């Protein structure tokens, strides 16, 4: 009989068989490497990097039960919390996409019309792999270091790597990315990782490692490129109608076009009691909104006259959860949809901005004892915020404090605060004070809220992965 009769292939999807042929296919695979990043930034990352910190909290909702997110805000951190599992799963999903691309792209049969695309795609995969690991290592400490596609059997043989090994790999990936991007300099596209996002991230990694001179060198590359600058108007950074690629070096990309490409930040971050009056989409249910709302701590962190405050924090006057009309603060960095009739929004999430580079650079200089040199870069950032009074009289410690405060207000709602607190060793101190104030302010918190302990600075590995993968849990959980 004819065996053609039995050869049936899916018509709605492609399959691997004859896939790795052309340049276009690898560009598509490289695009795919960004997707898990987009998906966890949308739902999870802000929970474990911003909500967990002293910057944001949530509007109490006496009508719903406990949620995954509320406990994290209150520093009740457990290995069963879905946020940690989702973040873990999506991160490694992204890493595997990068690994797969880096493996298959070396196939000799692939035809490249411009070899630059091969370098660019490799560079993107290396950059993204570094970013995935950088997030992982900052959350969980040492994690299994997977640098090629592995089978389930191989995965079971793997243990957690030392934190330093993970960092070494991140540095090495970023250096490799830099090399690749240098051969693809004519193929830049807004939104893609590039040479300078690699340098900026490298700078941040070195800063985290407290290798200040290397951080300084990497960040200097970005500054010397003259490709990036501060926008005159801070609010322009958060306009989904005209996305910024001048100050924003790397951001996670969203669009209102369709559900997959969109986020729904304002529908999660506006007060749930505001119904449609902030989102202007009365048809969209807001019952489970009210997250990532600025705390008193954050609001107090802004100096008098700081133009960023009005951009970052907006006030809505309306009924609170208990029906009492109050001024309720919510984030101003994420906007309602421009044209989507429903809850699709397209705000990008900045990961690396030029002001970040400046403040990191200042921090690297200050930590090396070059406080005076550093002042100018902090000043640049403050000037744009309308805080133009010249900085003077700072010693190393007080400038470090100023930089920390600048970072808190400059990057609020941008998922930096928790990492900054940990990096600068202030997490326990700041969170203890924050917890006390929160407990004093809110009588509805869980009785186990804000039990600050150093072990909680490292996130728990997801309980299911302890079971499935046999990995060692972080102490304390």
């Amino acid at each position, binding site marked *: 009989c004819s065996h053609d009769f*039995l050869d049936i292939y899916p018509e709605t999807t492609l399959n691997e068989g004859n896939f790795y042929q052309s340049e276009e296919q690898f560009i598509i695979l490289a695009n795919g490497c960004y997707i898990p990043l987009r998906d966890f930034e949308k739902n999870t990352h802000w929970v474990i990097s911003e909500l967990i910190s002293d910057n944001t909290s949530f509007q109490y909702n006496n009508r719903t039960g406990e949620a995954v997110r509320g406990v994290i805000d209150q520093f009740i951190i457990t290995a069963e919390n879905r946020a940690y599992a989702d973040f873990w799963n999506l991160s490694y999903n992204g890493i595997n996409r990068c690994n797969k691309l880096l493996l298959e792209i070396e196939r000799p049969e692939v035809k490249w019309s411009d070899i630059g695309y091969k370098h660019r795609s490799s560079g993107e995969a290396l950059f993204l792999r570094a970013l995935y690991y950088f997030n992982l290592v900052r959350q969980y400490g040492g994690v299994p270091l997977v640098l090629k596609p592995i089978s389930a059997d191989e995965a079971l043989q793997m243990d957690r790597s030392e934190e330093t090994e993970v960092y070494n790999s991140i540095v090495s990936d970023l250096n490799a990315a830099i090399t690749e991007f240098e051969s693809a300099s004519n193929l830049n596209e807004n939104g893609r990782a590039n040479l300078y996002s690699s340098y900026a991230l490298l700078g941040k990694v070195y800063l985290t490692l407290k290798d200040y001179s290397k951080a300084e060198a990497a960040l200097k590359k970005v500054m010397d490129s003259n490709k990036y600058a501060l926008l005159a108007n801070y609010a322009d950074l958060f306009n989904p109608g005209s996305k910024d*690629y001048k100050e924003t070096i790397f951001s996670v990309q969203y669009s209102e076009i369709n559900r997959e490409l969109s986020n729904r930040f304002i529908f999660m971050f506006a007060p749930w009691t505001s119904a449609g009056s902030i989102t202007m989409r009365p048809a969209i249910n807001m019952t489970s909104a009210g997250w990532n709302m600025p705390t008193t701590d954050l609001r107090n962190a802004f100096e008098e006259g700081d133009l960023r405050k009005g951009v970052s924090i907006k006030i809505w006057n309306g009924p609170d959860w208990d029906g009492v009309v109050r001024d309720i603060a919510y984030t101003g960095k994420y906007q309602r949809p421009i044209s989507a*009739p429903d809850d699709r929004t397209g705000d990008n999430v900045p990961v690396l901005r030029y002001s970040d580079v400046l403040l990191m650079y200042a921090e690297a200089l200050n930590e090396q004892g070059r406080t005076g040199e550093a002042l100018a870069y902090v000043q640049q950032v403050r000037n744009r915020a309308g805080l133009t009074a010249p900085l003077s009289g700072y010693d190393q410690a007080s400038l470090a404090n100023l930089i920390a405060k600048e970072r808190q207000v400059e990057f609020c709602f941008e998922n930096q605060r928790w990492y900054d607190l940990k990096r600068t060793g202030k997490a326990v101190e700041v969170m203890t004070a924050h917890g006390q104030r929160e407990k004093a302010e809110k009588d509805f918190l869980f*009785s186990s809220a804000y039990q600050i302990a150093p072990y909680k600075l490292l996130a728990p590995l997801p309980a299911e992965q302890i079971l499935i993968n046999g990995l060692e849990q972080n102490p304390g959980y």
Partner: protein
Amino acid sequence: AQKIDEVYVRVNFSEEKLVKVLQEVERQTEFHFTIQENEEYLSKKISINQANISVEELLKEIGKQVGLNFQQVNRNISMWDPAKESEIEDEPDGQGAMDIVGVIRDANGMPVPGVTVIVEGSTVGTVSDIDGKYAIAAEPGDQLIFSFIGYKSQRVGVGNQSEINVVLLEDEQALEEIVVVGYGTQKKEDVTGSIASVNEKTVKDLPVSSVDQKMIGQVAGVQIQQVSGAPGAGTSVKIRGSGSLGAGNEPLYVVDGMPYSAGMNQSLNPLVFIDPNNIESITILKDASSTAIYGSRGANGVIMITTKKGSYNTTNITFSAMAGVQKVPEKGRPNMLNQREFAQFQRDRIDIEVELREKREATLEDYPLEYRDLDALSGDGTDWYDLVLRNAPIQDYNFNLQKGTDDTRINFSLGYFNQQGVVKETGLERLSSKIGIESNLNDKIKLGASIQPTFISQNRANTNLNREDVLGVSIWANPISTPYDENGNLKPYVVAPQSKYHSAWSFANPLFVLQEMTSEQNSFQNLGLAFVEWSILPNLRFNSSLNTILEASKFFEYIPSTIGGSNRPPTSGTGRSRNNRFNSFDWLIENTLNYDLTKGDHTFNAMLGYTAQKYTANSINLSASPYQNDLITTINAAQAIDAWGEGVEKWSMISYLGRLNYSFKQRYLFTATFRSDGSSRFGSDNRFAMFPSVAGAWRISEEDFFGADSWVDNLKLRVSYGKSGNNNIGNYAHLANISAGSYIFNNTQVNGFSVGLSNPGLTWEESNQIDVGVDFDFLKNRAFLVVDLFVRKSENMLLQDVIPAITGFNTQTINQGSVQNKGIEIALGGTPIAGDFNWTINGNIAFNRNEILSLNDNTVRILAGNNDGNPTHVSVVGKPIGQFFGFVLEGIYTEEYLSQPGVVNSPQVYEGNVKYKDVNGDGIINDVLDYTIIGNPHPDFIFGLTNNFSYKNLDLGIIINGQYGGQVMNGLRQTTDNLQGFFNVDQDWENRWRSRDEPGDGIHSGVPKVRPSWGHRVSTLWVEDASYLRIGNLTLGYTIPESLVKKLKVVKSSRLYFTVQNLAMFTQYKGANPEGQAANQNNTLVPGFDMTSYPLSRTMSMGINLSF
């Protein structure tokens, strides 16, 4: 089965050999003559010319001409030469003998002519005349034996009687003697495998929509669970346990030769498309020697369904009507706190909150108005569950016309079935029809074709899902609120009493949801069949057929903006719709060649076949929202289509198959089969799979050492071994797919793909089964016993293996692991009392032990199910599939316990709170890590018992079925045992811990003082005994006497009956249905998970069957 007096033939022979005449009768009818070769009477000459003669008359005429006796057993007619068989002396010896006379009648009181009457142990015999009268000489000590084809023999002692009247009863045993097997039929006595038939007569009048519901309790080892009581809802059918982890456990259905791979569809049972009134026979193939002929689809057993075809030379018109009413029994309805108890519970909750927040005792003013005056709250309050239910009508009409001429028969039926649901606004309507024609073109070629179009319209409600579905809400909704406003209008949304400290959940009024929400499925299906049969030689037959199934369906759901959700008031302009359009076409071409040969003591039958099948399905689904208003609900009124997709599913299969039956002296039987399946679902490396089987049987009772007088009528020992497969592995699972996605850079949308895991070696599951069985008929066929022992080992399990996330994936489909089912099935029955009053009883019991022998090398367990993000079931090696998994409830923390040294200090450890066992002993109670196996959903045994009584024209049937052992988990307990104060809770919580002085029953903890609370985790509390005994059906029937019928002239026979389906259920389980199963949970890995089950109703109905 046909009767020889009802089937007419046209004959015109002059001086023709008998064998030719018999062959002509075979050609015109379904009868088959058992012809011993080389018998001299076969060459005797017959002359007869009749345009229309019944087979009975014809055979009598032949008997006259050549002196032969005939005996019919179902379709088989055997013959013998009485002169040769036994030389009956015509003249009694006369000594001491007296003349006995009498009349022989059937159960309907009609005289039976032609009955053989013999004095036992002698050669004296006679035959009853046309009026059923006989006369015979016998002595007082003699026994008379009355026998006639199709009737049970009777033995009567003469004593001092001179008149002996006898009522002969139909021999139902004999009617079953031909069974449908894969690709053919077989005489039951020749069957070597484990095959069971459903007695159509017993289940004929059951008021149900599909044939699987009729089979409940009828066949040993077939577990049919009614997982939902919704009209048209699917059942879970398992033959000999669960043999698969990932590829489904439903059997293969074969309808008129067409494999109908149903799978389980809880929303709409695929078998509803077949009107049970059109079904002639149901056979269940259980062991591998009978299922291996279905190869890669046979592993879960095969259910063969044959529809009615009509007969030649006769016209038969039947009409049946049934109408009844369904009602949900009181037993199994939820028993929740009444309104006073609920108010007290809410006050307790508010007390804690006030104390916690404001460090003071609560006062009356802290409570919502509705809770303040407890004494005013008398009575149960609103019983929401009761409100969503109703008494619902059910009706079924069927018209069947069969007309045959001597070479052609046609068959036409029309059926209408309408079942309204006991949950308001649900229901099913079916319009079914069949038209079939068969014609003998000439001696050698027969053609036939049929179509069976069926249209189904089903209105659904969301049930068996979660606490948000209508039944979920109606169980937990607070009893203080009411469904109607002051003006008597339904409230769309019910706001629970509000307090700033704590409020119970507000909810969408389930009555309003049922009324306003649209969820309807319209389906059309047609089974088409065309065949040609060519008798190349008298014993060589070629058959070629084309079977098709065409299906088209449309599902439409509209949720208007007036429907809110829990704590989500409706918002105007939020209407949303869902549309699914589906069509499929499945065709099968089969070519088989059959060869029969009898040589002396050797009988051979061989069959070879080639089949090709292809299935194509196309579906489109669209979700649209929001709708600005609810006036127009078609998609064009929606502002956007927010999700859409198209699915194309195809598979194809090429098979070669064969079977050889061999018997020696009708005593030693041997069967071998093979099938080779090539499937598009298998990777190209192992595209063809081979499924062989062998079986042998020894009819011990035919051996010479069994005297003719033995009380044993039939004793057969069967042994079989075979291999079959399960190919439900998904159509494209072996290919690594590239998952599509997209990303955006600035404003440019781009494709972003990722590569999935490939499974180049992915293949079918394989099942090896050994069966040893005994068929035993004894006491003159008054009793029977069938015992089967089997071991079924399934390998190459299709597993959704959970793999470490660091691979980039969370699950992977693999073929690994094995599961064993071994068990005993016993069917025992008989006719303890025969005569005017007749009692037959059929019982069956099946013990099955399921055990996972191995899983993936790396996987110690498979976790499945979902409760608050945690698993509810675990499958581990050494245990049956899908054990319940959760905390062991140890009771509550007491003062005494807490005063011990070394008690863990955690926020959850406080007096009155729930105490779970620290299984891993680490001092901390963790979800999952401290879970353990807390129950087993698999019953120890299942049983069925059917009793039929008849007295004269009255008959009474009772069907009982049940299971013993096994447990069920009520998933809604996450809500109804949840003391957080959001929901109403089970009445048991009246015994909760309230204070040190009122500690309750020590099991039910207090209202939680710490959030997040623990009290609603899966625990031993949720697991209940699922044993049950159900009186599944009771039918009382009355057949109008033929004497009366004859006066009516038009009607040939008429029967009236009254039936109660699901009469009573005896069980410890508190929920609606111990067999309930959440629709969104995997039936194999998450078995026994009852969630807001659509209740099974008790149906009382009346019916009439008329034959014209």
